[in-house]
């Protein structure tokens, strides 16, 4: 359950941003989460509601944008989609893959007032 720790980190960032950008309330947090980020989206949602209590983002809506996984296949010498780390290349079946996208865990946007 490191999702709780990630939510604590989000909370700290939001508190910092509130001082920086002068807002007192966050209505929506938009997060980008990749399929290879090691995060359970449901656990993150649960943790978010619990951890944001008493902060500028109490009751905020959590908007999760699930990005897509992508790897460079060294056999095909091209980019191929992947959903999980142990999956073979969808084109040639090789495991010689280098992940190029899908590990994102990023706050993208805040709706504040």
């Amino acid at each position: 359950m490191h999702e709780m720790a990630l939510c604590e980190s989000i909370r700290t960032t939001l508190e910092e941003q509130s001082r920086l950008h002068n807002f007192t309330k966050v209505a929506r947090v938009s997060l980008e989460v990749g399929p290879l980020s090691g995060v359970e989206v449901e656990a993150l949602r649960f943790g978010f509601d619990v951890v944001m209590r008493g902060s500028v983002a109490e009751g905020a809506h959590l908007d999760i944008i699930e990005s897509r996984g992508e790897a460079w296949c060294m056999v095909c010498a091209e980019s191929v989609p992947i959903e999980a780390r142990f999956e073979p290349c969808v084109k040639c079946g090789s495991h010689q893959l280098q992940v190029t996208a899908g590990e994102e865990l990023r706050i993208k946007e805040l709706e504040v007032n």
Partner: protein
Amino acid sequence: MSQTRLIQIEQDILAKNNAYAAANRALLARSGVLALNLLSSPGSGKTTLLVETIKRLRDRQRIAVIEGDQQTSADAARIRETGVPAIQINTGKGCHLDGHMVGHALEELAPQAHSILFIENVGNLVCPAAFDLGEAYKVVILSVTEGEDKPLKYPDMFAAADLILVNKIDLMPHLDFDIAQAVANMRKVKPSVKVLEVSARSGAGLDRWIAWIEAAHALERIGADATAQLSD
């Protein structure tokens, strides 16, 4: 008067941890300390392996240990019995060590120049994978009683490994653990990963593990010396 507005921030959620980890890494590099982050599920043999490793290295290397555990300080006590300094970090509910905790432990422990620092992470094959501590290498331990499928069940951890130790090979005669299959599964998540078979109990394979540590230590030392020369 407040008005609804949008703020684009594009901030990595792990950025704070990564910043602490980077500070730790810089500190360790300056003094040529080799830091190894040991990761596994509970009971794979991290502490036992550490104790056996320390016994084989302590006459010729300076060693320090950071022990992560949710509750107890039993592991740090086991390490101190070998005569090397150890600090216990209790994470409480936290299921992993993070860069900040390790930074504080480093201040307290103050490892000597050119020493080897072992960090035993909290026993867990999921959460610690996401948190860089500033180590030079992540060493993942899988014991033969855990099953060949673990690399596929916990791919993030095995993908993050720089070295994998398959421990408790003394038990192989009593099990149907298929080591070739386990290694094939590790290679599915990380084709280039190095794997060593060891037994902390019998000592089998430990000489190669020790050789790996000392080679890594030599590299760290060369790096630190080169950096020192550049800044002269």
